């Protein structure tokens, strides 16, 4: 087994802008994602979180700087290698047609199959395993359009797990969820981490950060404002500086929570 804090992926002085001449969305961002831990990218709307996630995915290319994966630049991975290394759970996904949950989750096998290949029974077993890991195997044969928002989010996670990735990217996974489903999702992410998955997610919900993060990266105006453990980086003063509103982080029964002032 690899060392616990072996890096999984790292950014080295990465800058990005959407068009030449336009304003930089990200400026000289550097950080490391430790393996088998949850890293949360936190910051106000429009600070560049999703852009940074898409850079990690390789969907956007850095203007300057390098993203490293296992000592190789991310750009040197081919499409299929990339799809087996990391999987994306998008914020939400509109499904126009009546797929069954299992058919939909099976799409996660694409990076493991040749271009014109089709999933076989071995792939079905992997997809069913992924559905069980997020606790919705009983929905396998339902139409995906009949599911609630929380269940759909779990389907997206199951599809990502079907890719059998080493790194799981989640884009604001709780943004559209109510309290119960947020709790359920947090539990699922915790369980995945316990099973050894490396997780990198964006969130603007401080309660989710407090509940899940091993490491937090706080982004402000395209720059890393603070990064570190919750104790180091996620303090009342930092959040006050980021949002310019009076708040503090207090411990209730040993658990940290955010409080307005």
């Amino acid at each position: 087994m690899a060392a616990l804090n072996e890096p999984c992926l790292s950014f080295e002085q990465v800058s990005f802008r959407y068009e030449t001449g336009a304003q930089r969305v990200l400026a000289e961002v550097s950080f490391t994602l430790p393996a088998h831990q949850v890293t949360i990218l936190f910051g106000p709307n429009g600070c560049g979180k999703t852009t940074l996630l898409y850079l990690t995915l390789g969907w956007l290319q850095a203007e300057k700087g390098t993203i490293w994966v296992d000592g190789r630049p991310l750009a040197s991975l081919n499409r299929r290698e990339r799809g087996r290394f990391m999987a994306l759970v998008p914020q939400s996904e509109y499904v126009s047609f009546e797929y069954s949950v299992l058919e939909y989750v099976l799409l996660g096998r694409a990076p493991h199959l040749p271009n014109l290949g089709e999933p076989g029974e071995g792939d079905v077993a992997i997809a069913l395993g992924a559905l069980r890991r997020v606790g919705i195997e009983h929905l396998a044969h339902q139409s995906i359009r009949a599911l609630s928002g929380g269940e759909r989010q779990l389907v997206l996670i199951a599809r990502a797990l079907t890719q059998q990735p080493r790194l799981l990217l989640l884009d604001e996974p709780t943004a559209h969820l109510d309290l119960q489903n947020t709790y359920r999702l947090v539990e699922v992410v915790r369980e995945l981490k316990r099973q050894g998955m490396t997780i990198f997610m964006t969130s603007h919900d401080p309660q989710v950060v407090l509940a899940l993060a091993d490491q937090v990266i706080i982004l402000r105006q395209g720059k890393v404002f603070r990064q570190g453990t919750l104790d180091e980086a996620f303090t009342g003063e930092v959040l006050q500086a980021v949002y310019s509103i009076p708040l503090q982080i207090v411990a209730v029964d040993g658990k940290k929570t955010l409080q307005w002032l």
Partner: protein
Amino acid sequence: MTDSQALLAVRATSLYRQKMLWALGIGLIVLFWISLLLGRYPAPGLISLERLMNDELAARLVFQLRLPRLLSALFLGMSLSAAGLVFQLLFGNPLVEPGFLGVSQGAAFGAALSIVFFSSKAVVVQTNAALFALAGLGLSYLLARRLRYGGWILRLILAGIAISAFFSAGVGLLKALADPLSQLPEITFWLLGGLASLTWQKFFSILPLSISGLAVLLLYRWRLNVLSLSDETAFSLGTAPHRERAFLIVAAVLPTAALISVAGMVGWVGLIVPHLARRLFGAEARFSLPGAMLIGGWFVIFCDNLARTLLNGEIPLGILTSLIGAVTFLALLSVQGRQWQR
């Protein structure tokens, strides 16, 4: 549910869908041979095999006229339906049809242009229609690249609408310019669509484009599902979404353009048949794509049989496909109304 139970359920669904495909396919072959014997010579009804052996006129009628026409009907149905299903998937929109990217209106414009200014000879009209169908697609693509509004899919749809409107205005202008006694009826007849003029020569002229396009779509039948996801998600699954989608759109448009160029505007097939296919086979394109092709073959052969046998004269095929398509569509909406709600 345990894994083995779930696996059994998966096997059962897939077996059921395979059986349905076989049933549709065998039924289509039967329908094809019955249709070959069906007609109005010497009397309305089926021609007897005995007459086919002995009557030279009957044999020529069946093998020189009906057979190429039926084969064209089969390919017309398969191509429009497959292209419709693929377009609906890739554009994430159940209301698009295969001609909407400027292809149908482009073909109509090309045909009308040829009739008014060049020649009404079938081969000239067909070539012009095919060229302008592809020009319609090309222009939609170029325009979509210039637009600065919305995502790629929305831009293509908007560009397709604009280019189609442009060509349809052109068709209107050509109609106004056309000689009302000779040219106008020809344009009108072309626009209504039909297979009455189909010969072996025409059939063989569309065959290469049609077969290669359909083969590509069938080979990609599972990956189509992956490419129907959003750009980022499809990319995260190891595909090159823009490039692969563009390739598949061309593969879907080529057979469509080829068939429209010989058959004219045969509406509704590419819109309604994919819906029927998804009802029967589910959305997953591994089954719904071959399913749509078979249903499309059924639908057009059935409509074309009516077109050529119902009356003494020919009823334009496009009228029948629209009429029967619209009725089917309404029936589907009311019977399965629940399924259609978001």
